[in-house]
C-alpha cells in the first residue's frame, strides 16, 4: 500500500544515530523497578535486559501487570516518583542513569518520541495540532515559529494526513481517533528521533484504523531508520510489526528472540498457552485451551517461576521454588523455563 506520500525533504535522513549502525539505539541491562505502595513494595520489573537497533522493531508483549510499560517508562526516566529504578540504560551510547535529570530530559526530548494508547489525552485540546507538532522543533532544534510551522505541515504530510497545510491550524477535537493518533505520531517524529516508543498505540483504535497505523509506522521505520519499541498485548500485532519479541510475565522476560523463532517454536509454556488460547478461524468450534487463573499481582509474586501457579505443564517443585534462568534454546532465542519445548504437546 502506498497511501502515504513520499518523505519530505529534511525528514528522510536517519536520526542522530551516528557511527556504528549495529550499535544499539537503546540498551537496557538488569533493569529493576520497585514501586512503594500502601500495601508494600511492588516489584514491577525485575532484571530485564534488551536492546533495539536502528531500523528495528522490538515488541514487548504481556498482559496487565507484566511490567511491559513500566520497563520502558523507567528506562526513559518517566517512571512515577514512588518507583525505585536500578540497572543500566544506554541511549545512543550514553549511560542515562549516570546523568543529571536536566540532561536526561534533554536527551529524551531530542532523541526519543512517544506514542501512547489514547491519542486524545496526549494532545492539548486548546492548542492547534500545528503548535503541538512543532513545539519540540522549537524547543530542541531552535527553530523559529515560522520554520516550526512549515515543519509541522511537513510532518502532518509525512504521517498521511490529507490537506496538511489547512489541518495544521485545526484543533484535536476536529480530528477522528485514527487521525489524532497520526498527529501524535507526527509529534513523536518531530525531532527525527532515533527511537520511537509506541505504548499500545492501536489498542484504542478500530481494527481497520489499527491496520492503517501499523502500516504507517512500518513505513516510517523503513524510510527514517528509526528504532521502534512497540508495547502491546496483541500477538497478532506483534506478528505484523516486530523483528524481535520479548514476552513478559510477572515483571520478567520469559521468552525472547527473533519473531519467527518465537512464533514458530514458542518454548515457554506461557507463550505457547497464549498462542493456543486465541480463537483461530481455521479451527473453529470446541472449547479454547484457556489458561486458568489471572496474571499475578506485582505485590505478590511467586518465588519460583511466576507462571507456575497457572502453568499447564506444571513441572516439579523446582519450578515452584526456584527462578529459572533465561537460557538459549536456539541461536537468538532465549527462554526462562525449566520445561522448554513442547513437552506438554
Amino acid at each position: 500500500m502506498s497511501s502515504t506520500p513520499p518523505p519530505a525533504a529534511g525528514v528522510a535522513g536517519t536520526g542522530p544515530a551516528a557511527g556504528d549502525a549495529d550499535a544499539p539505539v537503546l540498551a537496557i541491562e538488569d533493569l529493576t523497578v520497585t514501586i512503594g505502595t500502601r500495601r508494600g513494595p511492588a516489584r514491577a520489573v525485575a532484571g530485564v535486559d534488551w536492546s533495539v537497533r536502528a531500523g528495528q522493531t522490538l515488541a514487548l508483549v504481556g498482559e496487565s501487570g507484566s511490567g511491559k510499560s513500566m520497563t520502558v517508562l523507567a528506562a526513559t526516566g518517566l517512571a512515577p516518583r514512588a518507583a525505585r529504578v536500578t540497572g543500566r540504560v544506554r541511549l545512543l551510547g550514553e549511560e542515562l542513569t549516570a546523568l543529571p535529570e536536566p540532561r536526561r530530559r534533554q536527551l529524551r526530548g531530542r532523541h526519543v518520541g512517544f506514542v501512547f494508547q489514547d491519542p486524545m489525552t496526549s494532545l492539548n485540546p486548546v492548542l492547534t495540532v500545528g503548535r503541538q507538532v512543532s513545539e519540540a522543533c522549537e524547543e530542541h532544534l531552535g527553530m523559529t515559529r515560522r520554520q516550526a510551522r512549515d515543519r509541522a505541515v511537513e510532518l502532518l504530510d509525512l504521517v498521511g494526513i490529507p490537506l496538511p497545510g489547512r489541518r495544521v491550524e485545526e484543533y484535536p477535537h476536529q480530528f477522528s481517533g485514527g487521525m489524532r493518533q497520526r498527529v501524535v505520531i507526527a509529534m513523536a517524529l518531530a525531532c527525527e528521533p532515533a527511537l520511537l516508543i509506541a505504548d499500545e498505540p492501536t489498542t484504542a483504535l478500530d481494527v481497520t484504523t489499527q491496520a492503517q497505523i501499523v502500516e504507517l509506522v512500518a513505513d516510517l521505520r523503513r524510510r527514517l531508520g528509526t528504532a521502534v519499541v512497540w508495547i502491546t498485548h496483541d500477538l497478532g500485532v506483534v506478528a505484523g510489526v516486530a523483528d524481535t519479541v520479548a514476552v513478559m510475565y510477572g515483571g520478567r522476560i520469559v521468552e525472547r528472540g527473533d519473531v519467527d523463532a518465537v512464533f514458530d517454536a514458542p518454548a515457554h509454556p506461557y507463550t505457547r498457552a497464549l498462542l493456543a488460547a486465541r480463537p483461530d478461524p481455521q479451527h473453529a468450534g470446541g472449547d479454547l485451551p484457556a489458561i486458568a487463573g489471572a496474571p499475578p499481582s506485582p505485590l505478590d509474586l511467586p518465588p519460583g517461576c511466576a507462571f507456575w501457579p497457572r502453568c499447564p505443564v506444571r513441572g516439579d517443585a523446582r519450578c515452584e521454588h526456584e527462578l529459572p534462568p533465561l537460557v538459549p534454546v536456539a541461536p537468538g532465542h532465549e527462554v526462562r523455563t525449566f520445561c522448554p519445548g513442547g513437552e506438554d504437546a
Partner: protein
Amino acid sequence: MSGGSDGTLRRTLSALRHDPPAVAGTVVLLLLLVVGVAGRWLAPAGVNDVDVDQMLRPPSLDHPFGTDELGRDVLSRVLVAARVSLEVGLVSVGIALLVGVTVGLLAGWYRGWVDNVLMRGMDVLFAFPVLLLAVAIVAVLGPGLVTAMVAIGVVYTPIFARVTRAGVLSVREQVFVRAAVSIGASDARIIRRHVLPNIAAPLIVQTSLSLAFAILSEAALSFLGLGVQPPDPAWGRMLYDGRGFVTEAWWLGVFPGAAIFLTVLAFNLVGDALRDVLDPRQLTVSEANRSRA
C-alpha cells in the same frame, strides 16, 4: 448503608486522624455538642438572672466572661446560646438537605422539563443575596426562632439541589446504573440503592460547610433582631446588644463573637478535610491503584 460505606467510613476516619486541623475542628465540634446539650447545666448562673449590682463587670473569677448591662453572666449566656446555634444549624440544614436533595434527584434523574422547572426555581432562590432572602422570608413570616430556621433552610436549599443534581447527572451515566436498568430495577430502587450512596460524599462535605454558614446566618439574623427574640440568648443577638458598649465593655462582643468564629471555623476545617478525603477522584485513583496492584 451497605458494607461499602463502612469501608469508606473507616478510610475517611483514618485519613482524618492524620490531619491536625481536622482533629482540632472535630474536638471543637464535640465540645460544642456537649455544651449544646448540657449548656443549661454547665452554666454557672441563669441566663436571665439580672443583678443590678453587677452591671458591665469585666471578666473575673466570678464571671469569667464578665457581665452585661443588666448584670447577667455572659459565660452562662454564651453556653446556653450554643444550643440555639446548633438547633438552628441542624434544623435549617436538615430542611435544606431534605428539600435540596429531593429536588436535585428529581431534576438530575428525570431531566427534561422536570429539571428545567425545578432548577430554574432554584436559580431564582440562588440569585438573591443570602441574607436579603432570609430577611425577606422573616419579614413575611414574622421574626422568631422557627422562622429563622425555615428562612435559612430555604436559603441553603439550592446549593444542595445543585450538588445533588450534578452528582446524579454523573452517576446516572455510569455503566452500573445502566446495568441496574437492564435488569428491570425501578427508578426508586436505582435512586435509593445506586445513586444516593454514590453521591453521599459530596453531600456530606456540603452539609458540614453549610452548617457553618447556617450558624453564621442565624447570628446575622439575630444581630438584625430577626432571629431569636430577647431575652433568650443567641450569639448574634448578644453581639448586637454588645455593639453599644464596644469601648467600655469589650467582653460583651468578644466572647459571643469568638464562639461564632470558633464554631464556623471548626465546621469549615472538618468540611475541607472531608472534601479532601472523600473527593471522588481521589477515591477513584486509589481504588484503581488497588485493583491494579
